[in-house]
């Protein structure tokens, strides 16, 4: 796949940015931080209305049949806007597992609903501080799930979850309808992520893959979600670069714009470098979808995007001085999002290890 965006892809990028610019409201997002159990409805309505939920779902299941490149561009716009719901990435993870898993009936049941936005999906893989536990404590037996998945993004409102569990000492990926599961909302530093502990006590679920097939599938799903998230992180990091640049150009101290001081301007230039390296990795990873090098490219994208968003959050606030730490200015929306996205779908330690394992294998 090409690493140059075509006209259609450029249009998706421009249009998603335009719509979000017009409809996002900082005051609304700030309010959500202090509420548990609420997401930004205008954002999610926009996502559904614009067809973003359908982007990467195959056409035969009511989707648009596009791929990671297009979804990544939308995610980038969402990241710039610190959009107030985590459902796009979770929904994508679930639909990819359904597309690749071996259950056509289940795919036919859920994919059209996920594509239309009628159903919300979430992905529950992590346990404790492990992004991908080799032997998950959540168990699956006789078609039923037992155990708890902690702080699942979107877990408070999702209709269906992709769950990483153990069955007879083997890992399995299963799909569980959440109507019958208990959810304990987590009061978080980024509450619109809707984190919830999902508590399964004999919750019915359907197996999608087991053993080595499950390991391969879960890695592919995590890689894809990591690439979407990396785009979102790049969007956030780039927004912070622009905010920092504009402030450095207008704020004056000692009789000149602070951007004339190299302590400031070099910091802004470094922010640019981090954004462009992460963006380049994202483009490469999205274009490598389905190839043997995909997971390596996904890890590169994830690592550089996490570094870019974290660093730019830190430095953008620093460049602002006192005003940067106020509730009202809202830079903390990005600070919070940078950290929540850094932890969701595999932290740096996980992706660094995964990348090194792969490089170790390549170098004799």
């Amino acid at each position, binding site marked *: 796949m*090409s*690493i*140059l965006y075509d006209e259609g892809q450029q249009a998706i990028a421009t249009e998603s940015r335009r719509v979000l610019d017009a409809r996002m409201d900082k005051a609304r997002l700030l309010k959500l931080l202090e509420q548990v159990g609420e997401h930004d409805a205008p954002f999610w309505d926009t996502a559904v209305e614009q067809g973003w939920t359908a982007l990467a779902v195959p056409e035969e299941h009511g989707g648009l049949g596009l791929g990671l490149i297009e979804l990544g561009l939308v995610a980038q716009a969402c990241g710039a806007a610190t959009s107030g719901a985590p459902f796009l990435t979770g929904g994508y993870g679930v639909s990819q597992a359904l597309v690749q898993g071996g259950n056509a009936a289940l795919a036919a049941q859920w994919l059209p609903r996920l594509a239309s936005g009628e159903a919300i999906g979430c992905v529950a893989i992590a346990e404790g501080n492990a992004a991908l536990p080799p032997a998950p404590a959540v168990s699956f037996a006789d078609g039923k799930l037992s155990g708890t998945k902690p702080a699942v993004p979107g877990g408070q409102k999702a209709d269906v979850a992709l769950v990483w569990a153990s069955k007879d000492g083997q890992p399995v990926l299963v799909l569980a309808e959440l109507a019958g599961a208990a959810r304990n909302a987590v009061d978080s530093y980024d509450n619109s992520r809707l984190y919830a502990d999902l508590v399964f006590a004999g919750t019915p679920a359907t197996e999608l893959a087991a053993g080595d097939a499950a390991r391969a599938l879960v890695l592919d799903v995590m890689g894809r979600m990591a690439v979407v998230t990396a785009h979102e992180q790049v969007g956030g990091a780039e927004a912070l*670069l622009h905010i920092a*640049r504009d402030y*450095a*150009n207008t704020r004056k101290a000692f009789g*000149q*714009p602070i*951007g*004339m001081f*190299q302590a400031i*301007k*070099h910091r*802004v*230039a*470094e922010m*640019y*470098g981090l954004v*462009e*390296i*992460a963006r*380049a*990795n994202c*483009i*490469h990873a999205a274009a490598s979808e389905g190839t043997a090098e995909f997971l*390596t*490219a996904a*890890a*590169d*994208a994830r*690592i*550089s995007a996490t*570094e870019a968003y974290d660093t730019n959050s830190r430095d953008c606030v620093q460049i602002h001085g006192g005003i940067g730490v106020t509730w009202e200015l809202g830079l903390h929306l990005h600070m919070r999002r940078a950290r929540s996205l850094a932890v969701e779908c595999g932290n740096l330690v996980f*992706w*660094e*290890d995964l*990348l*090194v394992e792969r*490089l*170790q294998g*390549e*170098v004799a």
Partner: protein
Amino acid sequence: MSELEAYRAKARAFLESMAPKYGRDARSGNTVEQDLALGREYMAKKYDAGFAGINWSPDIGGQGLTHLHKITFDAEEMQFGMPVQFFGISLGMPVPILIHYCEDKEFVKERVRKALRGEEIWCQMFSEPSGGSDLAALRTKVESDGNGWKMNGQKIWTSWAQYCDYGVIVTRSDPTVEKHKGLTYFWIDMKSKGVDVRPIKLAGGDSHVNEIFFDDVRIEDSQRLGAVGGGFGVSLHTLMIERYIATDSGGFGPHLDEFVKLAKRVDINAKPAIEDGRVRSAIARNHAMRAGLDSITKRAFAMMMAGMQPGPEGSLQKLVAVRSRQKLSEMAMDLMGNEGLAFDPHAYVKTDWGTSWLNAPTGRIAGGSDEVLLNTIAEKILGLPQDYRPDKGVPFNAIPA
């Protein structure tokens, strides 16, 4: 196979045929003089095989292909370690400027042929003791002298000048106007009377740069390139010619695979170093960074193929790659422990960590220091204001010393 891929294959076949005599292994242990002689031979072979002046017009002896063909060939050639370092600047900047500005076309054709064949080498004399980053602060002066000019002053950091036949130079012709408006650009014969080239030994032990003194050097007006007072513009043009060159995300040091090999070979606390979290993190971060730079390069290449102008992010390459090479080299030396204390001054920079480390600072300074590159990114790409400039709008001879 695309036409460009076919070209790449053809280039590779040629390079493979040359490698046994001119490649990295063949050069091992050469003195600089032996290496230069070998380099001249290789350049002649390259010329005869039609791989010289790849993107230059056939009118002046080039191959008439595109810039992409040239980058393609260069990227392949880089992998073989051919003795081309003496000719990179010569053919990269001074000769193209001569082609563009010199009106005596027969003279140009002769110089181009000899420069491409490695028989003559050109240097570029810009930096001075009074200014490297601040090019327009230069003081080497020319005065009218009959129908020509008389030059006095000093240049510094001039690569390979001790082996050069010709050079291009920017000088101050009028100190009474703003500093960048009083400059004039010439080509000169390095064997002229009054030119004194003295090599400077660098920290790594080699002496590829020089200081050059000029004592009443006579220059004909026909040697002027561009208008009187137009030297700054010609200088900028010189620096822009090689804007898109073959890059190396390893910062022209060892490939990351070399580091992974080392980490697999040595132990930390009786376990392979590659199992150590500090080492793993360094490998992963470096890989992500280099992959990003490689992807920027690939995208720039694809854009040029599509007839578009590549984005400004290409300017990150040297800044990011060389400083990370410096730190990774330090870590590699740590991993080797006392084994890494031995030093071979002739070791190859792309396989030897000590050599890579010791020469990395040169890379962070030459061709734009990290700080100048950061300023350029901030000002030209992001639109941040210029630094405070007390010399702005002031005649050169009135700038506070």
